[in-house]
């Protein structure tokens, strides 16, 4: 692919790429372009969910549960707001870091390092899901939060009943993405180690990385809108 296009005006260069009657995304492996387009569609899904959350929360006239109280974790009898969520956030960021390192190792063709870094990423992802299970069971069993309401003996009874529905749907859909990502990481890591991608540039590691970073990206928005707002 010609490098001279880079030096051209942005708009004429883009117009030429899109109208060249051949590969539009020059220098981009097709798998990576497809992953980006999938992530674009996923962006629409998550944004529609979050927009639904915004509508539910601003239309309801019943009070919304206070996040820093609902999601507090008591340490030695003292309630620390959002402690578990903070730990989950740091676990996910750490996993993004190891993933970025794996991509770097991939282009240096260090397959062993790729395997271990991707395995570490998957382990951190599984830790995240495990903590989410803990969070959910606390909300369901102790706080009595249900989709479309609260149990009769819940202290939260009287708050907006939509809280459970929108919370479980959005964080559940994100947790599903993390779980699928863990499986995806392990499959790709094993195949890389076995040499199934030796004939390529190992761009599969970068493609898997795009998915994983996207999962982290979605968490950034969930963290801001569900837990901090």
């Amino acid at each position, binding site marked *: 692919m010609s490098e001279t296009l880079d030096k051209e005006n942005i708009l004429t260069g*883009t117009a030429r790429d899109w109208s060249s009657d051949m590969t539009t995304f020059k220098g981009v492996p097709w798998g990576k372009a497809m992953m*980006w387009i999938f*992530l674009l569609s996923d962006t629409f899904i998550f944004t529609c969910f979050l927009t639904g959350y*915004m509508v539910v929360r601003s*239309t309801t*006239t019943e009070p919304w549960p206070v996040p820093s109280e609902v999601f507090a974790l008591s340490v030695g009898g003292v309630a620390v707001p*959002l402690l578990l969520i*903070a730990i989950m956030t740091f676990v996910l960021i750490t996993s993004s870091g190891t993933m970025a390192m794996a991509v770097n190792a991939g282009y240096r063709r260090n397959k062993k390092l790729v395997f271990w870094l991707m395995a570490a990423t998957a382990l951190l992802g599984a830790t995240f899901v495990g903590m989410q299970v803990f969070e959910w069971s606390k909300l369901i069993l102790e706080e009595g939060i249900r989709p479309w309401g609260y149990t009769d003996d819940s202290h939260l009874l009287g708050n907006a009943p939509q809280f459970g529905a929108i919370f479980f749907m959005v964080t559940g859909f994100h947790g599903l993405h993390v779980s699928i990502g863990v499986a995806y990481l392990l499959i790709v890591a094993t195949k890389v180690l076995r040499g199934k991608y030796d004939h390529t540039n190992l761009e599969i590691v970068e493609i898997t990385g795009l998915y994983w970073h996207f999962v982290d990206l979605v968490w950034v*928005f969930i963290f801001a809108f569900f837990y*901090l707002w």
Partner: protein
Amino acid sequence: MATEGQQHPIKIYILIWLLLFVVSFFSYMVDYLEFEGMLRWTLIIIFMFLKAGYIVAVFMHMQWERFALIFGILLPPLALVVLILLMAVEADYANATRVQYMGADPTAVPKSPHH
């Protein structure tokens, strides 16, 4: 093969990694220090977009991609901005009609869980 990989120095990944930790810590502090009102929302939004920007630009390599891909992926979400604006206006209106015609109390205090 002409397709070049996205090979970049490890240094920039570690820098962004650290920045993500720092910014996450800041956004957690917004809640912990109980900032309220406009200051809270402004800080939350700024830190959120900072983190999102770091992830997309560096970890997902968007800043090194050709503009054909950048435009192809980053322009369509503008439609979502329109959706969000329309829904925000509509939600405000729905809330106002509920308060006005259904006798709802907009000042009700949230019930707290016991810890």
